[in-house]
């Protein structure tokens, strides 16, 4: 899978967890999910579960710790598929 293909598949997952006052077009590959997009940090685990289902991969605890942006997620997914 190309980076672009992964990104397109990740977008709708992240959109689900956006607070109501953050628009979907504010998402870019480098946005900090909790810091900039204001996603509740508790929802990071839900994002990971959705990503695992979508890509049929499994994140380790260490992967979770390094997850800040969509680019981080893409890098982790690249390693696993």
């Amino acid at each position, binding site marked *: 899978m190309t980076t672009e293909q992964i990104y397109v598949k990740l977008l709708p997952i992240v959109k*689900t*967890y956006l607070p*109501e006052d953050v628009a979907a077009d504010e998402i870019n590959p480098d946005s900090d999910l909790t810091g900039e997009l204001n996603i*509740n940090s*508790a*929802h*990071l*685990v*839900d994002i990971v*579960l959705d990503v695992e289902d979508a890509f049929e991969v499994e994140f380790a605890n260490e992967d979770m710790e390094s997850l800040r942006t969509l680019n981080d997620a893409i890098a982790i997914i690249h390693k696993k598929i």
Partner: protein
Amino acid sequence: MGIPAFTAAIKAGTSGIRHFPELESLQFSCQLGGIPPVSEEKKRDYFTELQLRNFNSSGILYGVIAGIDALADANIEFGGDEPLWELGIIFGTGTSGVDKFREAIYKVDDHKVRRLGSTTVAQTMASGISAHLGGITGAANRVTTNSSACATGTEAILMGYEHIANGNATQMLCGSSSDHGPYVWGGFDAMKVLTYKHNLEPTKASRPMSASASGFVPGSGAGALLLESLESAEQRGATIYAEVLGGHVNSGGQRNGGSMTAPNSEAVKRCIRLAVESSGILPSEIDYINGHLTATIKDPVEIENWCDALGRRGADFPYINSLKGMVGHCLAASGSVEAVSTVLQMKHGFVFPSVNCDDTHPEISKLIASECIPKKKISAEINTAIKASFGFGDVNACVIFRKI
């Protein structure tokens, strides 16, 4: 559901009890229950799509709907950016998020604890209901959950009342909620306290005060009242249903006839008497009793306790009825759902029919006149009403309302 539909239903004596094939296939003795119908569309009037993701807690669903409806009816603005320091919440439950907890247990046992997601705790903690309501509203005074079995809802009202009377808050949202379904009701089925005799005639099954009462029908749902000082309500021009005059909460100590599952009658009477005393009224001023009256063989004992505590019997006894004939026993939610029915009767001047007790229990007929238990809706001015709830653990709660 909602104030107008609920008012119309209790006036008409409409039963909400249905037969559930799921309970039949699980081999329940009692295959009946009261479950408020909530459409997917209605859920979205109260919750965001994100909140509804992996949501599986009926008690929180009912509690949030009742709580938000009460705030909206009271014309209170909520949900803004700032904390509401003067608004608190006491929203009780017996056990919360049972279906979600079951989901979690299966995953844990399947070595998939990491798949529980982020909302399992919030949906299964007892305070999940007050916590969800707190987040939606911004309530920032005391936000908590009480639990005293079937006395929970009435106790919540008194806890909110005391908090305001002590000068600690201006407004308290007081209510209680109960999950529905086999995992909540199964323990009661096993205790043989539910009726098994009416599976083919659900609307006849819940028979408070009847000679043919044979156990209660489990219900679910939530009720909520917004309590505040008179000045605060008047300033906003809010609809005032009634004033809380006072009340009392106690326990029979599980002594002298009281046990985990049965009330000590001495404590019940004491609770009623002290509620009257704390309200500064005479028993003769009480126009209406909203009973606990679950439709077990113990209903006559409750009536006798009311007679003794108030010193009134025969034709001198107040009107009395039981909502449980229509909605079943909503367990932890019963006190608040029934308190809502009480203040609606006061506001609109009627006494709802006690359904399914045309064959009034002979022990009850010996104690009070038949006219005290309206079988059809009657119009009546209720100035002073008393509502009591009794729960497992031998706990009692009794509140007195006055029309203003």
